Every structure is written in C-alpha cells, then in structure tokens.
C-alpha cells in the first residue's frame, strides 16, 4: 500500500498543477492574441501600399497598445492572481500615476517591455506547449480513435497496429514532457512578470523603508499615548484616593486630642506614609508622562524639573509653536535624565538647559560646569536615552572631557 502510494505519487508528480499551469498559459496566449489583433487590425481591414499608410498601420496600433499599457498591466496582474494565486504588487504606492507620468517612469518602461517583448515570446512558447498537449493527448489516445481512420488506409498499412503502439508510447512521453514544461514556463513567466510588472528591488526597498518608518512612528506614538493614559488613570484614581486617605489621617491627628500615645504614634506613622506614597506616586507619574507637559508644553514642564533639582538650573526654551507630543516627551525625558546625571555624577555648581528650533530640528542642549568624564556607555541613563532619541530618528551626542564641562546635545526631528 505504502509502496504503491509512493509509486503513484512519483508517476503523477509532473502533472501536479499541470492543468492550472496550462490554463494559465492559455490565458496568456489569449491576452497576446488580443494585442496581436489590435496590432494587425489595419492589415486585416485594408492592405496599405503607400509608405505613409504602412507607417500609420504599424505605428497607430502600437500607440494604442502603449497607451493601453496600464490596463494591460492590470489584466496581467489579474491573470497571475486568479490563475496562479501570485500577487504582483504595483510598483507605485498610493496614487495611480497619470499616463504621461507612467510613460516616463522606469516602471512604465519595464511594463511595456513585458507587453511588447517578453510577453509575446512567452505566449509563443505557451502556444507551443499547448499544441504539445494537444498532440500528446491525441497520440496517447490513438487506440481510441484509430478506427475512425478509413479502412482502406489501414488495409494498405498492415503494420499500423505496431505503429500505433509506438505513437502511444511517444504520446505518454510527450505528456510527461508537457506536464513538466507547463510548470516550468509558468514559473519563468511568473519570474519575468514579477521583475517587469512589479516594483524593482530599489522600489521595494524604498517602500519597505517607508513602511518601517511609518510603523515605527506609530509604535512610538502608541507607547507614548499609552503612558499618558496610565498617567491619567493613576492621577484620577490612586492619587486622589491617597490624598483623601492622608487628609482623613491628618484630620484624625489634628482633631482627636485625647488619644493614648501609642494610638497617636500609629496615626502619625500612617499619615506620614500616606504622604510619602503620594510623593512616590507623583514621581512615578512624572516618570511616565508629566501632566504639565501635556497641558502646558516643554517650557513649563522643564521649569518644573529645574525647580526640583538641588542645584541652580537655568532654563531657556524658545519655541514658536509646540512640537508633536512624542517629540516633546523625548525632549522632556532627555533633560530629566541628563539633569539627574548632573546631580549624581558631575559635582556641578550649576547647569543650563537650552531648547531651540532650527528649521526642522529641535535642539536640546544640557550643559553643566562639573568634573566631566561622562560616557554614554558607562551604565548611566544616557544609553537608554540614546535609544529613545534614536527611536524618533534623533541624535544624541555627549561631549565631556575629563575636568569638564559636560555638554549633552540632542537633535530631534520636528516639523516646523
């Protein structure tokens, strides 16, 4: 059973999908016959003799075919999709180009080459293969129809039965050959069409880069929106509840005068912890996405960071309009992290934050008068920052000679 199964599969292998391939080749031939009909139409209608008439008869239909190029391309794409399930993407993205534009484009030239050169040649080969199929079927079934041949011919050729055996054998061989060549020709056509009707390698890469850029931007925006949502939820929920709790504990502390000492201590402790929790939650929320940034923009948010810093920080924000929320968030966290580093490592006495826009670039510079020697790769938050900056196609550079000063410069893309 097992062996016979395998044998059968081996015998039938060349015919797998052969019908589909043959039908595909047939449609290809049909399309090219159509084109040929248009090209030959003047010659069918009249016989041009004069030079100008011949020229017109040749060029006229040619112009029609060239102008019908985009339609032919669509027809061919449909053929590949419906017959073979092969999807050939259009070389242009978005808007369909106009005829003049299409004619001038490299993609247009490639498509015309398929319609006028490669396509006809492939259709010719397809015709040969289809004819081969017909011959093979006829030869294989010779014993079925041999009786139709006039009796006196058979009487005149006594060896015809032996010949018929040869013909059947040759027919079977031809069947195998056609099964294989149908598939092969369909593959060649597919490859040719993919190259000539689809986008070129360069166009594919361009499109891929566009897609990736867009999906990455969406991802970054989505992450940012999610952070803002969590910030809102925490602020409206947990934070309010904690404040309410702390108020109640504070009221208990203030109004319950005749409490035993240990009860007072417990309330004291709880009140203090509730306030600390509010403080910590505030830190957490600011680390996610500070509300002041969303409501009031970079200037107000950075002033807040500067005010909380334990050293004097000068902030100068000069922006004609607000950047996108994502860019604002990146700029905010760059400054926040850079100042945290200044506090932790720089031993600086003052720092300065400058935010300006030059054309399509948002420039953020954080400098201090500390000891220098900071490196982006030594485990400080700078490495993480560099990644966040890179996610929006920005650049981060750190200039920090030993002995100082340290200057962190960040450039972010920012549509004016």
């Amino acid at each position, binding site marked *: 059973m097992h062996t016979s199964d395998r044998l059968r599969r081996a015998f039938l292998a060349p015919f797998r999908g052969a019908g589909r391939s043959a039908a595909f080749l047939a449609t290809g031939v049909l399309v090219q016959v159509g084109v040929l009909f248009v090209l030959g139409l003047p010659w069918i209608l009249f016989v041009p003799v004069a030079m100008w008439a011949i020229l017109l008869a040749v060029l006229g239909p040619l112009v029609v075919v060239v102008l019908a190029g985009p339609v032919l391309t669509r027809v061919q794409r449909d053929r590949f999709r419906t017959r073979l399930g092969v999807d050939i993407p259009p070389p242009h993205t978005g808007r369909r180009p106009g005829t003049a534009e299409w004619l001038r484009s490299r993609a247009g030239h490639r498509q015309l080459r398929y319609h006028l050169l490669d396509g006809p040649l492939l259709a010719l080969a397809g015709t040969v293969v289809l004819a081969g199929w017909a011959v093979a079927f006829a030869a294989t079934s010779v014993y079925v129809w041999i009786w139709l041949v006039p009796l006196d011919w058979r009487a005149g050729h006594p060896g015809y039965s032996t010949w018929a055996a040869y013909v059947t054998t040759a027919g079977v061989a031809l069947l195998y050959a056609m099964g294989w060549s149908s598939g092969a020709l369909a593959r060649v056509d597919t490859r040719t069409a993919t190259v000539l009707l689809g986008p070129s390698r360069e166009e594919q890469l361009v499109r891929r880069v566009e897609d990736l850029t867009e999906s990455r931007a969406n991802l970054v925006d989505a992450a940012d929106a999610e952070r803002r949502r969590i910030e809102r939820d925490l*602020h*409206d929920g947990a934070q*309010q*509840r904690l*404040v*309410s709790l*702390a*108020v*109640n504990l*504070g*009221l208990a*502390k*203030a*109004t319950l005068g005749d409490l035993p000492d240990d009860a007072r201590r417990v309330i004291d402790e709880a*009140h203090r912890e*509730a*306030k600390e929790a*509010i*403080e910590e939650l*505030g830190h957490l929320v600011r680390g996610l996405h*500070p*509300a*002041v940034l969303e*409501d*009031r923009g970079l200037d*107000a948010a950075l*002033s*807040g960071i*500067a*005010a*909380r810093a334990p050293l*004097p*920080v*000068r*902030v100068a924000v000069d922006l004609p309009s607000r950047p996108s929320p994502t860019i604002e968030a990146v700029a905010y966290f760059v400054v926040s992290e850079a100042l945290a580093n200044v506090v932790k490592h720089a031993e600086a006495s003052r720092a300065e934050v400058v935010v300006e826009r030059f054309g399509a670039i948002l420039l953020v510079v954080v400098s201090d008068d500390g000891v220098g020697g900071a490196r982006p790769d030594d485990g400080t938050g700078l490495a993480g920052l560099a990644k966040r900056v890179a996610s929006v196609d920005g650049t981060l550079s750190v200039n920090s000679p030993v002995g100082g000063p340290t200057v962190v410069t960040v450039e972010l893309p920012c549509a004016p």
Partner: protein
Amino acid sequence: MRAVIAEDSVLLRIGVAKVLQMAGFEVAAEVGDGEALLAAVEEHRPDIAVVDVRMPPGFTDEGVRAALVIRRQWPDTAVLLLSQYVEERYAADLLSANTSGIGYLLKQRVADVEEFADSLRRVAAGGTALDPQVVSQLLVRRHSDPLDRLTPREREVLELMAGGRSNAGIAQQLVVSESAVAKHINSILTKLDLPQAEGDHRRVLAVLRFLGVA
C-alpha cells in the same frame, strides 16, 4: 467665616471640605466647575474660594480664569488655587493685580492638614500662601545677579518669605530662633537693595516684585 469649594474630584472635594470645617470655616457651597463657582460666589459672597485649576469642561485653566473674575468682581473673596503641578504663569497672572488674599498650592499639600488649615486662614485673612515649589520655580526664572549674592540659608529664608510666612513661621520651619531669622532677612533686604519695610505683607510684596510677578 464662609467658604466655597470648586473641585471636580469628589474625593478631594470632601477632603478639602473637612479641613475647612476643622479650620473653622462654614462650607457654603461645593461645586464642580468654573461657571457654578462664579454663581456660588455671587450667591454666598464667601470669605474664601478654594478652586481647582483644572476643571470641566476643558480641563485646562478654568479655575485660574474663574479666579481672575472673582478677584475683579468680588475683591472681598480671597482665592486659594489648588493645582496638580506648578505653572508659574498662573501665579504671575493672579499676583500681578493684587497680592492680598491669594494662594496657590499643590493639591498634595491638602494632606498636610494643619499647614493647609493655616494657609486657608492666612489667605482668608488677606494674606498670601504660595507653594514652596511655586516659589522655587519662580526663582529658577529669575537669574538676576543680586540673587546669586545670597547664601543658601538666606535663599531658604527668602523662599519661605515669598510663601507668605511670618518670622515666627520661618523660625519654626528652619528650627532657628526668630532673631536669627530677622538677621537673615535684614541681610537679604540689604543684598537685594530693598529698603526695609514694615509688616509681613509689604515684605512679601517686595519679594514678589523682585521675582517679577508683581
């Protein structure tokens, strides 16, 4: 003394009401947005309005705008603004006209019940209460040289002064004697080229003028 509360978060509104009652205020009305606040102030003419900066419908600065209207139309009503974060422009807007009976505190200060009650009484009595963070943020903005001449301690004292504290309050906060505070203040006023003034209020005015908001 009577008070009106405008705050859209119910939990916080209840908390503020409790502290107001503890501080000896009668809560005349509790509302959730700017329009209702103005109506309530017109109806009750309270001594103080405690107002959230961010309220419906826009959730931006409805409270500040309502506060400015209250200052103009009912100057006898003191206003204490509560904000989730510090926005010094609000403080500047509010303080530019008149610095009496005005306060600007972060919401979380409500939890420091007794200090918050102090602030409420001070503002209702025509004084000032500025959040320490507001003050330090205003200081960030002003980088005039005279400030650099101050010692860190003097800076601390100046911030507390700007917050509306009396000498006794500052002394208590910094755990020093009142005479030490007075000495610091003299030194500050000299360094900042400000003539010595009488009374807490004029002193605060001087500080705020120096900060550039008054």
